């Protein structure tokens, strides 16, 4: 569908090895564990790409390297065609504004001693933006409303919020600088099913409204199916299969993908909400009600 769009971000032959050591006082190096093992993958502008795999498949490591949060052992990371593998200083700071991450554990990724408002305003301080207090407060309110929270929550602390609300704060913080690329690493796996649906719906809406490119990392193929256009399946550090979402679920080519599909619990009875409100990749419908 969106085949003509140029890649926004890409990795080529990306490898990350972690040293395997033994011993507490004298550490001996036993060898290397390849966490990511020669992955080549494109993220197209405007798309929503799912990266799916089990714990230890290397999906989070890949995501971190994609955002220069982790140095690859070898291979190339590109952003808008440019090699950014070893970006430093100002160049890296600029990249950070364009590429942001939402983490799995919203409690662990928020400073417990900072108010929600301060946490969301952090990116402005770091990048020296919106120095005027009133303007900053206004933007924080806007962001809170954008993620479906009341502006008054700015004065609360993370422990006063539920898990779902904390994840909304994590998302508000990630979109504060108006990024082009948002990488969400298992954003819902710590949440109740009912709250998962709220957060996934929010991500879908934000993508539509802000024109974000989204990379969603998950261990569950069912979760990705509701949000993504394309899915990449990872297993033991390697890319197993990449396909448009309808194709992957209708006709998975790899055995491993079939195994992952088989692991999703089947729910008897009719699937509710059978008709989608609109095709997923359609342009923003101005007054969508859901």
């Amino acid at each position, binding site marked *: 569908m969106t085949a003509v769009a140029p890649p926004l971000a890409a990795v080529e032959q990306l490898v990350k090895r972690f040293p395997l050591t033994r011993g507490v006082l004298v550490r001996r190096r036993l060898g290397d564990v390849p966490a990511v093992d020669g992955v080549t993958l494109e993220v197209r502008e405007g798309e929503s790409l799912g990266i799916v795999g089990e714990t230890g498949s290397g999906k989070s490591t890949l995501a971190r390297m994609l955002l220069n949060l982790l140095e690859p052992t070898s291979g190339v990371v590109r952003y808008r065609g440019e090699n950014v593998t070893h970006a430093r200083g100002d160049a890296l700071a600029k990249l950070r504004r364009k590429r942001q991450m939402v983490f799995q554990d919203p409690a662990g990724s928020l400073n417990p001693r900072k108010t929600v408002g301060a946490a969301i305003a952090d990116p402005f301080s770091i990048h020296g933006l919106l120095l005027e207090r009133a303007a900053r407060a206004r933007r924080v309110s806007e962001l809170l409303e954008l993620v*479906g*929270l009341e502006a008054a929550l700015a004065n609360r602390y993370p422990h006063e919020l539920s898990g779902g609300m904390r994840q909304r704060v994590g998302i508000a913080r990630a979109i504060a600088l108006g990024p082009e690329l948002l990488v969400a690493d298992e954003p819902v796996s710590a949440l109740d099913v009912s709250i998962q649906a709220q957060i996934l719906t929010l991500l879908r809406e934000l993508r539509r409204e802000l024109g974000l490119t989204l990379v969603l990392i998950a261990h569950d193929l069912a979760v990705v199916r509701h949000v993504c256009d394309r899915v990449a399946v990872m297993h033991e550090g390697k890319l197993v299969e990449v396909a448009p979402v309808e194709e992957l679920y209708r006709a998975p080519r790899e055995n491993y993908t079939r195994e992952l599909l088989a692991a999703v619990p089947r*729910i008897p009875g009719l699937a509710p*909400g059978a008709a989608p409100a609109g095709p997923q990749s359609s342009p923003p419908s101005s007054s969508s009600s859901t």
Partner: protein
Amino acid sequence: MSAEAQPAAALRVEDLRVAFDTRDGLVQAVDGISYSVAPGRTLGIVGESGSGKTVAAMTAMGLTRGARTRVSGRVLLDGEDLLAASPARLQALRGDAIAMVFQDPLSALHPLLRVGHQIEEAVRAHGSEVSRAAGRARAVELLELVAIPNAAQRIDAYPHELSGGMRQRAMIAMALANNPRVLIADEPTTALDVTVQAQILALLRRLRDALGMAMVLITHDLGVVAETADEVAVMYAGRIVEHAPAAELFASPQHPYTWGLLRSVPRLDAPVGAELVPIPGRPPSLIDPPSGCRFHPRCAYVRDRHRMVDPALESLAGVPSHRVACLLPETERRAIWAGLTSGAAASPVVAPESPSSGPAAGPASAERPA
């Protein structure tokens, strides 16, 4: 005694109520729930965080006893009331006749003790005559029972040396140490990958059948109980709002909250790109629950009367095993669910009057500026 209705029940909970006296007021966490589970059968208890499902289970195990806890009702284990049992008697039954598996095996296992040692402890705690060697042999046997490969070696592993799935297997082995008649599994797969989840659920089913245990499976995810439970009870705000045989519940769910849970689960048989429909708002405060039907502030089908009248859990006409606490007429409920699953009536827009309990995280779009 009075348990004449289903004499076969291994575990029978009658009108259980649990309240905690807190600084903020009395939290009525469990508000009159009843259920029973027969040997070899599984009851799934489903609800969101804060619905009381875990508190009910912990109370059955005697784990909520304290000066600030008020408990009433009965929890009958083969006819013996656990709520009335002395601490010593409870200690003897716990881990022996009734056992529990918790959500997070990493924090439930002692990090500095070998896994085998911890399982041996569970074996020896209830059999004073068991020698060390026999305890160890039993631990290996249990690890084999839960399909841990190389059990004889893994018995000397520390918890951090095992993967999440293996740790959960070790926890299950520990719970099974004394052949319990009742096993309560509280979110046993929530922290795990879907692939591992499928393995653990298959393991629990196999053990239940092989050992003839009565099992209570607690989860927030209807998908988890779909293939494992014989019966499902849906809990909301401390009460059971719908209770039915699993096949009946999935074929013909009756409560708007159950619909909400079903529509929240990502599933493979919905059309690609189908919207998940979250339940708006959050579970209510249990200190000051909503008037009338407790679900009314989040219900898309609320009528004025529902804000005043508190519905009782009642059987459907013609289906005595299917009970629901909802004030909507049954014909109407059936029509609504038929509409929701046909796809014709695309989601009737859920417009809850502002969520009652403080800064509730409503649906993202609710407070969205245009």
